[in-house]
C-alpha cells in the first residue's frame, strides 16, 4: 500500500473539486470495498477524499410520491427505513441479502453502487486483468469461471457486478444523481453501470471527479407484488450466483406488467426487458414464467464452468414469479 493524503471536506462541491484536481485522488465513504483494494494493491491512490461529512445521509420524500436517498445513507439504515420497508420492500430485501450486519452498517448507498467486481483475478494483482490493468488480458476467460458473466460479456472481461442493492434499484427504475466538476446530472440506473465491451476498466458511466450524491426512486407501481431472491453457495454472507428482483402487477389472472432485474449474470445489474415483454398481458401460468425466463436467457453465452447459471437463472425467475402469483393462479 502506497502512502496517501487524507482529507475530509464538509461539502460535496469541495470533495468533487479536490478529486477532480488530482488524478490520483479517490473518494472514500464506508471504505468496505476501497480499503480492501488498498490492501490488495488493486487501488493505489495518492489521496483519499472522505465524503462522509459531505454526503446527505437522509431519506426524503419527493413531490412525485417517490423518495430521494442520500448517497451517504448506510445500507443498514436504508434497509430498516420504515418508508423503504413499507413502499419498496424489494429494496430492503436486496440490501438485507447482501454482506453482513457489520458491513451494512459501514457501506453507503453510493459506495454500494460503485463496488467493484469480486472476480478473483481482478482482486489478485499477480494475474493479468483488463479491468485492473487495461490490455493485460483476461485471466477469467479461460480460468476459474464459476462466477463469470453469462450475459453481455466481452472477450475482454467476463466479470459480474456484485451488488444486490443495485439489482433491486434497477427493477425499481431508480435514477442516480451525480455531481461532477461541470455540475449536476441524473443518470437512469440501468444506464449507470456499463457492459465491459473493450473498456472493462470502466464500471460505470462516471468520470473522474464525479460523485454520486443521491439515488431517486419513482413512486412504486400501485398494487405491485415484489420479491428479491438470491441464490448463493452459503445460506448467508456470500455473493450471489444468481439473484432476481421482480416487481410485477397482476390483474384478472394476467400480468399487467413486470419489472425484472438479474444479479450475478452480467457486468451490470441486468434488466430483463425481454422477459418483461414476454410477460406483459400474458396469463399467469407456469408456461408463461418459463417462456419469459427462457427468452431472457436465450442470449446467454456461458463458459466451461458457469453453464449452470443459465438453468439456475431460468429456474430462479420462474420460482419468483410462481411465488408472487400464488394467490391469483
Amino acid at each position, binding site marked *: 500500500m502506497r*502512502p496517501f493524503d487524507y482529507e*475530509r471536506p464538509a461539502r460535496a462541491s469541495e470533495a468533487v473539486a479536490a478529486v477532480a484536481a488530482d488524478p490520483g485522488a479517490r473518494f472514500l465513504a464506508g471504505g468496505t470495498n476501497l*480499503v*480492501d483494494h488498498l490492501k490488495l494493491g488493486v487501488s493505489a491512490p495518492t489521496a*483519499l477524499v472522505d465524503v462522509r461529512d459531505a454526503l446527505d445521509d437522509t431519506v426524503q420524500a419527493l413531490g412525485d410520491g417517490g423518495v430521494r436517498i442520500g448517497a451517504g445513507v448506510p445500507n443498514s439504515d436504508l434497509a430498516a427505513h420504515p418508508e423503504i420497508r413499507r413502499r419498496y420492500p424489494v429494496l430492503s430485501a436486496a440490501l438485507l441479502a447482501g454482506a453482513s*450486519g457489520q458491513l451494512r452498517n459501514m457501506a453507503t448507498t453510493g459506495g454500494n453502487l460503485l463496488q467493484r467486481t469480486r472476480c478473483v483475478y481482478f482482486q489478485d494483482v499477480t494475474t493479468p486483468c483488463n479491468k485492473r490493468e487495461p490490455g493485460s488480458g483476461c485471466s477469467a476467460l479461460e480460468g476459474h469461471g464459476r462466477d463469470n458473466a453469462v450475459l453481455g460479456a466481452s472477450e475482454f472481461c467476463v466479470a459480474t457486478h456484485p451488488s444486490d442493492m443495485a439489482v433491486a434499484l434497477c427493477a425499481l427504475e431508480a435514477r442516480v444523481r451525480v455531481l461532477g466538476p461541470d455540475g449536476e446530472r441524473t443518470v437512469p440506473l440501468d444506464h449507470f453501470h456499463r457492459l465491459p465491451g473493450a473498456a472493462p476498466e470502466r464500471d460505470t458511466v462516471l468520470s473522474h471527479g464525479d460523485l454520486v450524491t443521491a439515488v431517486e426512486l419513482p413512486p412504486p407501481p400501485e398494487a405491485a407484488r415484489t420479491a428479491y431472491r438470491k441464490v448463493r453457495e452459503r445460506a448467508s454472507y456470500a455473493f450471489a450466483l444468481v439473484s432476481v428482483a421482480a416487481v410485477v402487477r397482476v390483474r384478472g389472472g394476467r400480468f399487467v406488467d413486470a419489472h425484472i432485474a438479474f444479479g450475478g449474470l452480467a457486468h451490470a445489474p441486468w434488466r430483463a426487458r425481454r422477459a418483461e415483454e414476454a410477460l406483459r398481458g400474458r396469463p399467469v401460468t407456469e408456461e408463461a414464467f418459463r417462456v419469459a425466463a427462457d427468452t431472457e436467457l436465450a442470449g446467454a453465452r456461458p463458459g466451461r464452468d458457469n453453464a449452470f447459471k443459465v438453468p439456475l437463472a431460468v429456474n430462479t425467475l420462474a420460482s419468483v414469479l410462481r411465488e408472487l402469483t400464488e394467490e391469483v393462479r
Partner: protein
Amino acid sequence: MDTTITLHVDGEERVLTVDTRTTLLDALRDRLGSTSPKKGCDHGQCGACTVLLDERRVLSCLSLAVAHDGARVTTAAGLAARDELHPVARAVLDHDGLQCGYCTPGQVCSAVGMLAEAGAGWPSHATEDLTAAVELDDAEIRERMSGNLCRCGAYANIVAAIREVSG
C-alpha cells in the same frame, strides 16, 4: 503520512499518531495494545475484528483510523464493567459458545450490536414480513450473526447464548 488522532477506546481517551494507511484494527492492536479485536482475514470476510464504533458494530479491519478521529470505540474488553462480564459475554461463557476463542470477542461485540439493531426493530434477511415487529427467533439470530465466522463450529452454542440474553 502521519496524522495525530484521538480515539476513545473502552472509555479511555487515547491520542496517537498514525499513518493514514493504518486501519482502526491495527491502531488498536499494534499501537494501543488492545488485544480484543482480532485479525482473522484483514479483508472484511470473517468478522473477528468486530468492534462497536459509536455503538454500531463495524469491521475495524476495513476502517481507516484516520477516518475515525474522535470516535468512541468499544471492544469486548470494554464491555465488561469492572470485574463483571457483560451479559452477552457471560452467556457465551455459560453456553460454551467458544472453543479456540479467536473469533469470540468479535462474536460478543457483534451480538451486542445486533441486539441493539433488533431492539430498534431492524429487519434481517430472515424476517418474513419486513413491516412487522422483529421476533428474534433462532433463524433470525443465525442470520444476523452470520458475519462472524467460527471455524471451531460453536455456532449452536452462540445462538443459545444470545437467545438467553434476548429472551
